[in-house]
């Protein structure tokens, strides 16, 4: 390549701004179009997000991880038979299939006894998130829970489950509260984000307004320690005040925001 040829790609000289945002800025252009490199980088990110949605939950691996923590697992399945049905029928992902419901009711020895907390792990929209972060989060959460003296139900793993599937599980286990660890809708740059939903006094028909959510638990997002800290606050307050959801959330949002009106585009 001795002869100097015009560059095929017009580079953007403001790449220095990338350190301020994860947005895909300063990509350059081929003509007016996306150059090959960022085009294929996007395709890869979308493929990973799609795979996260369609990857089956490795129930054995999650159960082994729980066993290593000293917890037995109950394996359950929602009424959505497969991923395609799960995606089209949100109603079915919120209830257990007949076999799971029967298995749960058969195993509960003393219906009057009850437990304080049920933990439910569901694949949701990203089994990848569960594989990466569910057991890992429990490694910090379980020791924190030990300080409360609460009784814990066996941990349930639900395939093809939505958030609300935690309600029938908790009811069957006689739990006063339920925490559902679930794979969140994958973003292009966050295919493995885990969410946790807390519901006090769960029942069939609990609404989203009755739940508190901790979102974006992943390596580049909320850390396990930070998630555990917030989660323990929510669980303790829910237990103490016997509520969860909007009314509880309003009072946790006390963090002072640092409000800046300036940026390099407006400051002199």
């Amino acid at each position: 390549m001795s002869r100097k040829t015009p560059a095929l790609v017009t580079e953007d000289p403001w790449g220095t701004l990338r350190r301020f945002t994860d947005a895909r800025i300063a990509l350059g252009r081929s003509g007016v179009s996306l150059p090959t490199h960022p085009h294929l980088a996007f395709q890869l990110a979308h493929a990973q997000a799609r795979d996260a949605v369609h990857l089956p939950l490795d129930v054995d691996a999650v159960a082994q991880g729980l066993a290593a923590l000293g917890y037995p697992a109950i394996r359950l399945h929602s009424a959505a038979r497969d991923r395609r049905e799960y995606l089209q029928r949100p109603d079915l992902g919120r209830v257990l299939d007949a076999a799971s419901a029967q298995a749960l009711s058969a195993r509960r020895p003393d219906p009057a006894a009850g437990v304080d907390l049920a933990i439910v792990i569901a694949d949701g929209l990203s089994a990848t998130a569960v594989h990466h972060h569910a057991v890992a989060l429990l490694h910090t959460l379980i020791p924190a829970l030990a300080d409360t003296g609460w009784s814990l139900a066996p941990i349930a793993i639900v395939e093809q489950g939505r958030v609300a599937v935690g309600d029938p599980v908790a009811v069957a286990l006689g739990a006063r509260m339920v925490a559902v660890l679930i794979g969140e809708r994958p973003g292009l740059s966050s295919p493995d984000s885990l969410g946790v939903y807390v519901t006090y006094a769960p029942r069939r028909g609990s609404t989203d307004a009755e739940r508190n959510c901790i979102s974006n638990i992943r390596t580049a997002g909320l850390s396990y320690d930070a998630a555990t800290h917030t989660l323990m606050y929510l669980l303790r307050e829910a237990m103490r005040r016997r509520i969860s959801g909007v009314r509880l959330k309003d009072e946790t949002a006390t963090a002072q925001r640092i409000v800046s009106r300036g940026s390099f585009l407006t400051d002199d």
Partner: protein
Amino acid sequence: MAYTQTIGSTTYRFDSLRQLMAQATPARAGDVVAGLAADTDEARVAAQMALAEVPLKRFLTEALIPYEDDEITRLIIDGHDADAFAPVAHLTVGDFRDWLLSDPAGAAELAALAPGLTPEMVAAVSKIMRIQDLILVAKKCRVVTRFRSTLGLDGRLATRLQPNHPTDDPTGIAASVLDGLLYGSGDAVIGINPASDNISAVMALMEMLDRIIERYAIPTQSCVLTHVTTHLEAIRRGAPVDLVFQSIAGTEAANRSFGIDLALLDEAHAAALALGRGTLGDNLMYFETGQGSALSANANHGVDQQTCETRAYAVARRYRPLLVNTVVGFIGPEYLFDGRQIIRAGLEDHFCGKLLGLPMGCDVCYTNHAEADQNDMDVLLTLLGTAGCHYIMGIPGSDDIMLNYQTTSFHDALYLRRVLGLRPAPEFETWLARMGIFEAGQQGNGNAVPDAFRRALAQLPRETDA
């Protein structure tokens, strides 16, 4: 009343206009979940044939959602303009399709007709139209709106610059704003979806956008897409509010789930008008809609999602908005399963809005759990450009890192403008040329940063210091 259609030896019966409309709707996931969809393809076409025979006048007497139960129905019926309706008052739904496609139905005739149409009439005719029909008629419609730029002119395509950031970080947002401006984006609005509803955080964003627009003399308007009550509070506290945003739906109950009603929208509209911030015009409301929102709120009254969507446009047109866009693929596959459903829905919404006199844009978008990809978006984008869509979203590299979905990029808008010969809003086009971003009406060939922005970049700490 009941409607019937006989196909061969089978007679299909539809108990109400509501049921007939639902079963005539091209297949989509949300109507299946709601139990409203036709059971078979033949039943669907039978419903479409029966619907084609229904006189348009019937929609004025058989309400899909009772007048007594729903303020949107009352808005539609009470606001109907019988004189404007007169040219098509004698037609059936099927005749109306032919009328719309006919050559005498031009831009002036369609504009004059709009106040005489109800959303249900428009939804009905859309259900028996193919995609090319939806494009051809929408292309004939002309709706022009103004605030600091002029939108909707023939041969123009505008963009909303959408510089979202997951923590509303001002510098992160400014980085995306600059990226967009240098790619010729932002003539419809510079509009942020804030991560926080906190009033002081929202006001900080409003002030930042206002300073950017003022400092660089950009002929556009700003919007922070927060709840209408937050806009009202910001106005009370003296924030520089250009456009008032709100998500709206097509039933009173669905709007209540959004925390709004018509009285509240009236109040916000009046408050923003009183600020008098528009220089070219006073269209200042920005509405977003999307099929499935009423069902999602358990507030669809047994009405199919496309008809519910079209009813939302009756809400929008009350306020002469600057911008309306359907966020077509955001809601997910439970409502629009795949690229095919998203593409058709986007073109239906664009057509129905335009026919009702609205300045329609479209958020050409999808989520990662929908059966859709960039190719589907390219199809919808190109078809919308052909149909005369007012504006699309513009975001760095199609990746919204705050809302976690994919919409159109700055590059996509440049593609569409180039392939269809479309230009930005005239005032913005002049600004782009003055700044040296455009040369000879096109994105410039060089990569030089305009002086004003080069000075801004020069203020940044060096990367090693940051």
